[in-house]
């Protein structure tokens, strides 16, 4: 009996003679499965049929993002609402330049395998371009060596692209401490001694969020924060001038780049949000009518 991978391979070959190399690589992995996967045999199969609902969601989501990206590539105008927190980044760096003081950027306290840290590193690249342009001192304390390596690469690239190699210093991005509270006390000390004019906190933060933001506030800096962790948002909102909430953190790099291809991804995301809202409304109605059990089970993932 033919397994799922073999069927997929034949179907793809019938559809197109030019299957990209990467799809073949994927098929190689699929074909290496010892178990036979068929639609009528869902138990003991290599494919986790109980996660089929998640696969459908992934496919629909990817299709929406790709469709909007394609439209963006074709030149369709895409409206993206203003995000004051991101617009304020340039203003904050400008203020630091006028005052002749530094900009402090913290890319969160998580490792580089966290998507929030990757988002923060993307924003760091943009901030570094602005500081390089105005020759404003930049301080980037980090908690993990991998983030140090990525941060140094991104900042150096920004300075090189603007022809400011002389202004670049390897110690702009510096490893401070691996312990959460040791990192916090070191950064708080840095804030009180160097008195940066602008503090930018982007990425994953935990209990230290308020310790950092309150110290920055006491030091008189303009503060912009962004995190996807709802439990830390109130602290940043209370102590910072601008706060990027949840998805805004991930949207920042696309928003700042203004590149239609990246903005297309944001629009695809918005489209999926509309679908989710509709699904929630349908769910509320069905559950209220006491006929929603089957609907609820559709979204359960094992």
């Amino acid at each position: 009996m033919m397994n799922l991978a073999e069927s997929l391979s034949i179907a793809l070959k019938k559809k197109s003679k030019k299957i990209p190399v990467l799809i073949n690589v994927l098929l190689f992995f699929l074909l290496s499965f010892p178990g036979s996967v068929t639609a009528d045999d869902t138990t003991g199969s290599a494919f986790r049929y109980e996660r089929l609902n998640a696969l459908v969601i992934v496919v629909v989501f990817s299709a929406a993002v790709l469709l909007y990206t394609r439209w963006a590539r074709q030149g369709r105008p895409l409206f993206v609402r203003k995000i004051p927190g991101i617009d304020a980044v340039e203003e904050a760096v400008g203020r630091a330049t006028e005052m002749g003081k530094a900009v402090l950027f913290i890319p969160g306290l998580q490792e580089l395998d966290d998507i929030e840290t990757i988002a923060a590193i993307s924003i760091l690249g943009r901030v570094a371009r602005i500081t390089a342009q105005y020759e404003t001192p930049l301080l980037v304390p980090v908690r993990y060596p991998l983030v140090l390596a990525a941060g140094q690469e991104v900042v150096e690239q920004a300075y090189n692209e603007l022809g400011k190699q002389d202004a670049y210093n390897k110690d702009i991005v510096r490893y401070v401490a691996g312990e959460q509270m040791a990192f916090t006390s070191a950064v708080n000390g840095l804030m009180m001694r160097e008195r940066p004019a602008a503090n930018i906190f982007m990425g994953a933060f935990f209990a230290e969020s308020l310790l950092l933001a309150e110290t920055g506030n006491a030091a008189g800096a303009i503060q912009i924060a962004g995190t996807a962790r709802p439990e830390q948002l109130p602290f940043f909102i209370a102590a910072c001038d601008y706060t990027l909430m949840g998805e805004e953190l991930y949207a920042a790099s696309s928003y700042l780049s203004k590149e239609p291809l990246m903005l297309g991804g944001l629009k695809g995301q918005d489209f999926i949000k509309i679908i989710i809202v509709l699904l929630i409304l349908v769910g509320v109605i069905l559950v209220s009518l006491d006929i929603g059990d089957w609907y609820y089970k559709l979204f359960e993932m094992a």
Partner: protein
Amino acid sequence: MRTTIPVIIAFLSGLVLAVSIFFRPEETVIGRIEPELLVWVTIIGGFTLFLGAVSITRVNYNAVRRLKKGWVYNLLTLVSVFVMALPSLLPASWSPLFGDAEGSIYDWLFQRLDKPMMATMFGMLAFYIASAAYRAFRARSAEATILLLTATVVMLWRVPMGEALLRSINPDFPDWINTYVMNGVNMAVQRGIIIGAALGAASMSLRIILGIERTYMGKQ
């Protein structure tokens, strides 16, 4: 080349990991890839620790050499790094003071200095919350007033004496707070943010996998 190879690695890693969650680890190679790659990440992370040590030494040494403002703290950091690290790197077979077992120099410093200092920093959070709350709860607008009232009621509900006070007003008062404020309004807003953030993370991951997003490599 400097961009193409990382983009290919990101594409393959992202695709394989995304696909792997749909396959059983006990029956397929692809299903077992995720834990395997996580081990690779740990190994690479271990090597990069050397980068961190070099960075912390260079930054603090330069500050001490130039007698920058607060250079004493930099000197303390340098001394602490080496006093903590060196004895723990030496084999415990040489002396019970080496290594990181109980009774070693490392253990003594960790238990008697490091841990209490961490606890102190964490304890200070209470005072920071008080000062932030004072600013956030000032009733300057209608929204801030609602926030102030809600926060007062929730804070009262969270302490036994406050809960007793609320029960004296109405026995069901604490349950209403739990049902309508915490599991109602608060939960709805949190879920909204979580759904938005999850979609944002998924969208960004997709952009990285497809090579559309390259800003994390310094490309604009």
